């Protein structure tokens, strides 16, 4: 069954082979609809952001970077909230489903936080002439990125599924509080020095620019949901494969014992 890898970000896949009735990938009717929706929305966003909306009086063309930077930030924070909620659910209800959700959401959060940093730096270059500025938003995003790397490191280094769920849940549970504390402390810190802060959500833009921004955030949220569903299904299958390997090990060990 060859899959047509189109250049859109949701490559369609051929009909599942007749013999094996089950789904052949993490796609399903729901994700296909959502996928198309995300595609269309990103197309509209591109048109709105790059062509239709006017350049900003003050920022010039670089305001168009906001239409991608701010949605990515919003999606990143949404992913963080999901991770923390999932982690608390894991510790509270020992539920394995939430462990997979938290793990998937954390991975997405790391990708989105990295993109936030990159787009933030690309924004910084024309605006302040330098890639990195110890501005409140960029700094707290950087610390957040390090915390997420710690989460992924814990998840990768623990072999045993049960203890992996517990340990990553404890780190995951602390992500949101950490974000709040880091933001608060960096805000106070930078306000002591009054140097240029990244003009974020409200550069007194309105009209079409504001609409594009909000539309961008909606698109990013849809994209996050789509990615989360697929990543969750991958995590679920990976966990099932691990479980099978375990059952085989038990069977082999028992056969060995009885045989010898």
């Amino acid at each position, binding site marked *: 069954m060859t899959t047509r890898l189109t250049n859109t970000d949701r490559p369609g896949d051929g009909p599942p082979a007749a013999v094996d009735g089950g789904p052949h990938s993490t796609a399903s009717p729901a994700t296909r609809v959502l996928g198309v929706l995300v595609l269309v929305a990103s197309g509209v966003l591109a048109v709105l952001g790059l062509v239709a909306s006017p350049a900003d009086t003050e920022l010039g063309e670089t305001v168009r970077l906001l239409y991608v930077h701010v949605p990515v930030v919003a999606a990143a924070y949404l992913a963080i909230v999901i991770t923390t909620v999932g982690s608390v659910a894991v510790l509270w209800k020992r539920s394995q489903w939430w462990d997979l959700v938290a793990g998937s959401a954390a991975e997405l959060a790391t990708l989105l936080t990295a993109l936030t940093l990159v787009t933030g730096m690309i924004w910084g270059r024309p605006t302040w002439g330098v890639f990195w500025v110890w501005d409140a938003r960029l700094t707290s995003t950087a610390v957040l990125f*390090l915390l997420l790397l710690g989460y992924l490191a*814990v998840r990768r280094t623990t072999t045993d599924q*049960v*203890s992996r769920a517990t*340990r990553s849940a*404890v780190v995951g549970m*602390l992500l949101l509080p950490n974000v709040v*504390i880091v933001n608060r402390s960096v805000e*106070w*810190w930078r306000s002591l020095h009054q140097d240029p802060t990244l003009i974020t959500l409200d550069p007194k833009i309105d009209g079409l620019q504001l609409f594009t921004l909000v539309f961008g955030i909606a698109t990013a949220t849809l994209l996050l949901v789509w990615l989360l569903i697929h990543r969750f299904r991958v995590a679920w299958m990976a966990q099932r494969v691990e479980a099978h390997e375990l059952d085989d090990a038990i069977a082999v060990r028992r056969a060995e014992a009885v045989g010898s």
Partner: protein
Amino acid sequence: MLREATLVARKDLRVELRSRVTTNQVVPFALVVLVLFAFALDPDRGVLERATPGLYWVAVLFCALLAVQRAFAVEAADGIRDALRLTGIEPAGLYLGKALAVAVQLLVLEVLLGLGVVVLYDTALGGWGLLIATCLVATAGIAAAGTLFGVLAAGLRVRETLLPLLLLPALAPVLLATTRASEAALGDDTAEGWPWLGLLGVFALVYLTAGLIGFGALMEDT
């Protein structure tokens, strides 16, 4: 639960008194760090003098890292993890006990480091009320976070590198708050420092709560 916490804390401190690792290794390490900062920042150009609070607290964080690693290396000896779980001590009591022991060692370190800074960087100490309060609340936060991440990394084969990766970014706001608060204390307007103390308090509370919740689950794994 408090009875168990003091029992564990006294045991940890007695192990430290017997083995003298903190006093013989971590304190000298801290002084080395201070000296290296002085080499790096060339004392008479004033930079060192302005940066003293920051450098002091960076040194404290590194010492905290070593103290936590040491605290859990003691438990890694053969059979101790099993024995601890068989005593039926409440996980929360074990967590508080170990955190208390780390906190006490940190306070001793902070005092010694303080002397080191006064001698090496001839810093004039002032604003004692704010300074002591900052040390106490910050130490509580650092010990709470350190103990939680310490047990989380314990038992994993990459624990030496995992602990710094987990603990130091989490302690970033603590470094910020303690440095600003210390600057305010040493400078003239101590009023400026109190909000930072509030932040340190919130930090300590968040991690103490997380520790009391998470420690039991973390002790459970093989």
